[in-house]
């Protein structure tokens, strides 16, 4: 059965036999870069198509169905069009920052890929402060957005960027607290250990109601962090036309929208890792037979399945809810999410200390 397990070790062993360690490391780096870039391209194509299809089904439409069977090449055709389009830079824009911004947003998204465990033993960098690293890097994306908004020299862009700044900075908090609940339960910041701790059941099921609340808070917070509806104030089509990327066109615009989708993928992957056991199959207590059957499904499929479930959930939000107003957005964070997550963290800590979880 195909699985990504073992491929990494096999490749490394082979490289170490053929080359000396330094060259082997360099080759590994190149392979990782190529893989992550192609993953980016693929994810961009798949997620945009998925969003359009999900939106269409919810809105009783068919969605793209002209390019290729069922429209599966629609996004590829769109990308081709965007590549051929001229990337305009406004006359009065700050040209350096304007052109730099999309790359910063992309870079942040790429950096976040490092500690994610895609399958058993398939991880770019199993850093021992994985969760902390993710929290730290993901807050950097606001710099790219602010840069885009400021450098465009457009008032809509500026307003959108300022909203985005306020929003990402506030929602970092409750996302961080939601992540902390799992850290408290696991006692480790390392992604692989968090996954390993869910060997006998996912945290969502093991951790009683507080973890479920933390999960809900996490989903809400990351929806806001990735600027998705109902928190898409930074783009707010009907208010600010397109928010911070109003002035962008062609490939630079494509990079922004690609980064948005990659960010969704990453936050959902992290959510799946923390709450739904990452690549860990569904294990229930001591049901040996059931657990054994579940182990037959490759770990990469488990991981992708959980991640795409969460992505679907976020898309479902987007196509159901109206947008919040900017002050309500901050109200929601500071008056509802933050107190609840603080209280929730306290509960989880008590549970962890008393060992009440399964």
């Amino acid at each position, binding site marked *: 059965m195909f699985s990504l397990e073992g491929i990494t070790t096999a490749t490394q062993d082979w490289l170490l036999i053929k080359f000396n360690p330094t060259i082997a490391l360099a080759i590994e780096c190149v392979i990782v870069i190529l893989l992550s870039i192609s993953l980016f391209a693929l994810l961009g194509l798949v997620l945009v198509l998925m969003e359009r299809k999900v939106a269409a089904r919810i809105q009783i439409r068919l969605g793209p169905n002209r390019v290729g069977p069922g429209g599966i090449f629609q996004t590829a055709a769109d990308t081709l069009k965007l590549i051929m389009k001229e990337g305009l830079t406004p006359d009065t824009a700050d040209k350096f920052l304007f052109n730099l911004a999309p790359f910063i947003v992309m870079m942040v998204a790429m950096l976040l890929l490092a500690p994610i465990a895609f399958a058993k033993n398939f991880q770019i960098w199993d850093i021992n402060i994985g969760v902390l690293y993710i929290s730290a890097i993901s807050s950097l994306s606001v710099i790219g957005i602010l840069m885009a908004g400021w450098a465009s020299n457009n008032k809509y862009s500026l307003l959108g960027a300022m909203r985005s700044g306020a929003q990402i900075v506030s929602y970092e908090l409750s996302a961080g607290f939601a992540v902390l609940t799992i850290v408290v339960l696991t006692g480790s910041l390392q992604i692989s250990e968090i996954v390993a701790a869910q060997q006998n059941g996912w945290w969502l099921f093991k951790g009683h109601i507080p973890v479920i609340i933390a999960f809900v808070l996490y989903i809400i917070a990351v929806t806001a962090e990735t600027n998705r509806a109902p928190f*898409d104030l930074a783009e707010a089509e*009907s208010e600010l036309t397109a928010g911070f990327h109003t002035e962008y066109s062609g490939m630079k615009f494509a990079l922004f929208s690609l980064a948005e989708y990659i960010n969704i993928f990453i936050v959902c992957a992290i959510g799946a890792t923390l709450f739904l056991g990452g690549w860990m199959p569904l294990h229930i207590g001591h049901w040996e037979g059931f657990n054994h059957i579940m182990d037959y499904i490759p770990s990469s499929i488990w991981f992708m399945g959980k991640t795409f479930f969460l992505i679907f959930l976020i898309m479902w939000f987007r196509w159901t809810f*109206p947008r*919040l107003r*900017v*002050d309500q957005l901050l109200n929601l964070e500071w008056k509802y999410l933050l107190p609840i997550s603080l209280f929730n963290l306290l509960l989880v800590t008590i549970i962890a200390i008393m060992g009440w979880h399964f």
Partner: protein
Amino acid sequence: MYNQTEIIKDTTELGPEGELVVNMGPQHPATHGVLHLVVTLNGETIKKIEPHLGYIHRSIEKMCESLTYRQFIYVTSRMDYLSSHINNTACALLVEKGMQIEVPERAQYVRTILNELTRIASHELWIGAMAMDLGAFTPFFYAFREREMITEIMEDTCGARLTMNYIVPGGLMYDIHPTFQNKVKAFIKQFKEKVVEYEDLVTNNVIFQSRTKGVGILSAEDAISFGCTGPVARASGVNCDIRKIAPYDVYAKVEFDEVIETAGDSFARYMVRIKEMNQSIRIIEQLIDTIPEGDFVGKTKNVLKLPKGEFYQRVETARGEFGVYIVSEGGTTPHRIKFRSPGFSNLSALSHMAEGSKIGDLMATMGTLDLVIPDIDR
């Protein structure tokens, strides 16, 4: 009043106190057309709104002066294109009143039913557009599904989906389609099933409620002094339903309630329209089975000539009071014609309503005003 350089200057420089001046429109997703709002912002807070009009001015009033009394009716469909039937009715009623043409009862019944169907169609579209302004895209498609049934009924009977030109002085252009009654009944059935969907999706949604409640408040006094009519004024507690005040066609014979809300905010305006749709259904239900047999058009002369004098007729469109004022010199064409369109006065209240609120509130307020730009600009 504003020359071109002034407008450009507004957008590139900050205001005297460092405010942002943002041009919303003429190309903007939320203005639903070519409305141009010069919005002065202090951060996210709105300090001043100035609507600039004229982007879609077609001088319809002047145009009508060269058209005969049969011809000028079709132009009025191009003003408030979402309630074109009602506009046409107003013009036909005026000519009938001026020339004392007797309209057969059948025509009156059909006109009333079609007017109410138009009102529902307009409100359906409005729900979709309003939800879209607030960032929810999906209700738009659900609302259009129901609206599609109405446009199909219109297509069957009038031959067009939007600008029907089905009403002529003296009655109707031709008789209703044989399937008309059945289709209307089928529509009523589906509408009653589906209207509850908006409750789940929009009305009861906590985000929608917090976006609209207490937003864009218009008091009854202000509503009157700005000349607001229709659902906008009724949401502020002003009795202004022309169907009740000055009944035309068979509105005097049917039972329906004038929907009044007192809060005057965006949510009240939303509720007025939702309830009005139900009242429209009620009117149609009373009439649809009792359409009398007979002629569909009264006896008219071949060439219509209004007697010398001034004539005014008002009707209740989906947006408010629509008035036609004609000065006749006794010829075959109007000497002077003036339309009182509801959108224009409703828009004038926007600045008053949205000042001091956030940009997001402006969308909620403007959405509930239900502006149709060709109606404002004519």
